[in-house]
């Protein structure tokens, strides 16, 4: 097999075409997705729990903390977001810990589409991406033209990454091709006038998919449709990223790369608040996918309060003194 390519590479479409027969019709797609092996729930949970018991200390911990910081999509998705708050968040993303200039910057700032321009301006040439949720986030309950307009708007404002939500209603009622076509259409909308593209992250909302089998099917569906990243959840429902469902998605991207030769990233989001949790996810990535995915290009954390905890742990490692919330920002 030739070396794997990302989903946004020019020749990715050709590789995906190898599986064009499974996406040729609704029936073929259903047959394919339902033909995926069932998930061993007990085994999956045991494996995820087992990977969470590794002890990561001293230099390895320092490396993991810095890596986790550089993988964060620092997020603010509130109805009360103001341009000032977004600018403050951008400043924090560029220099997370003003008392220690060696702290790495975050990967991206994640905002609503109307804040993209503000974030883009605030980030300037820092190299931090602007990610924007789109397609009627978080419910996704609008007509397709509205979703596409939402996406095109964010892309035109300069978003480097688009986080779309799938239509869970269509997925759960078995209209897989509809979901597939929708992802394809949004991917089309991610192309700018100058032919540059915004990377597409596809949010499943695992908490609403009900079963592990559905998460596996949804992962394959999104990757077949050309997702650059698959993302666990919006962070707006009760169940968000959990170690088992993230592990399941990591296994799906591993199998997808082995089958098609296209590499897809993973982004757990919501509910990851402590350094300990973040390090457990990194262990899981390393053990399931290896080094290839251990970079901000292939693995992200969707988080807001996680960054403060990572910074406090970082301060503890560098000074030997336990830090406290007085020494990080109040977001």
């Amino acid at each position: 097999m030739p070396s794997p390519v990302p989903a946004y590479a020019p020749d990715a479409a050709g590789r995906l075409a190898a599986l064009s027969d499974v996406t040729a019709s609704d029936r073929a797609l259903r047959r394919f997705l339902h033909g995926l092996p069932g998930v061993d729930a007990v085994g999956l949970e045991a494996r995820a729990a087992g990977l969470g018991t590794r002890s990561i200390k001293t230099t390895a911990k320092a490396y993991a903390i810095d890596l986790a910081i550089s993988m964060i999509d620092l997020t603010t998705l509130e109805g009360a977001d103001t341009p000032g708050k977004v600018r403050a968040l951008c400043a924090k993303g560029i220099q997370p810990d003003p008392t220690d200039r060696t702290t790495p910057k975050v990967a991206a700032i994640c905002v609503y589409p109307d804040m993209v321009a503000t974030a883009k301006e605030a980030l300037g040439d820092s190299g931090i991406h602007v990610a924007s949720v789109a397609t009627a986030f978080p419910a996704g309950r609008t007509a397709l033209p509205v979703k596409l307009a939402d996406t095109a708007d964010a892309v035109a404002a300069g978003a480097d990454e688009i986080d779309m939500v799938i239509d869970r209603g269509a997925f759960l009622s078995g209209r897989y091709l509809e979901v597939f076509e929708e992802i394809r259409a949004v991917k089309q909308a991610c192309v700018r006038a100058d032919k540059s593209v915004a990377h597409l992250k596809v949010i499943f909302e695992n908490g609403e998919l009900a079963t592990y089998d559905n998460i596996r099917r949804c992962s394959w569906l999104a990757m077949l449709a050309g997702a650059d990243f698959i993302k666990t959840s919006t962070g707006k429902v009760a169940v968000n990223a959990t170690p088992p469902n993230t592990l399941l998605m990591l296994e799906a991207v591993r199998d997808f790369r082995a089958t098609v030769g296209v590499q897809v990233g993973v982004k757990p989001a919501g509910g990851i608040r402590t350094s300990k949790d973040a390090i457990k996810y990194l262990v899981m990535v390393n053990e399931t996918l290896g080094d290839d995915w251990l970079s901000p290009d292939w693995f992200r954390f969707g988080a807001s309060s996680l960054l403060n905890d990572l910074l406090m742990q970082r301060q503890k490692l560098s000074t030997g003194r336990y830090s406290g919330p007085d020494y990080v920002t109040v977001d």
Partner: protein
Amino acid sequence: MSEQSRLSVFKTYKLYVGGKFPRSESGRVYEVTDSKGGSWLANAPQASRKDARDAVVAARKAFGGWSGATAYNRGQVLYRVAEMLEGRREQFVREVAEAEGLSKSKAGAAVDAAVDRWVWYAGWTDKIAQVVGGANPVAGPYFNLSTPEPTGVVAVLAPQDSSLLGLVSVLAPVIATGSTAVVVASEAAPLPALSFGEVLATSDVPGGVVNILSGRTAELATPLASHQDVNALDLTGASVDLARTLEEAAADNLKRVRRPAPEDWSTDPGTSRLTAWLETKTVWHPIGV
């Protein structure tokens, strides 16, 4: 075999952190012995620096609610603690007698004194503001009001010699004024302090307001003294050498520090321990027309 002897039920002493009774995260225990004969009494948990860290997190979390409660309410809660302590008098008399090698009557007197001391501090919650706060005369058309406010999270090294009365005397003033406490119990005689956690848990003190750790005082005090999220340090139970290094560590984030001094726990404590954990806030307010 005429007389069936019961199997004795030994008590597992545990830490009191965040309203729960965990074992030490390290899994360690150490043997606590009778101060007179040296016979084994129980295994006490030997807390680690991570337990201290967890206790500080719990204390910080509880601070908002506890400091925001009305002084009157705090007084009621503290009085409730005294009621619970009184109800367990027998248990504490036995534990104090074993821990300090006292006769039963002397231990009883110490427990009574501890209950009385607690009630005394409970009465102070809504009165300290009148004593150390007030309206200041200023040369201008302003009200100028000073009010005492709690410091925050206070790390307390409980006295080594007096396992219950001493503990009560250092702990009550911290929480009476609205701060929250992480207490390191007497190293050689931690059992009454650990049982005192059960008293707190069964009264209305919110979890995390008081956290009680047992173990090596020096091992626990060092991370607490340098902890950036601890606001004050009571060194009563520290030796002279240890107190010196701890005070140096505490200087890094300008903690309030109360130095150790010879204490007689049976005398009138005065208000110095109350005022040690208070910050004075002064506001100017224009006099309306």
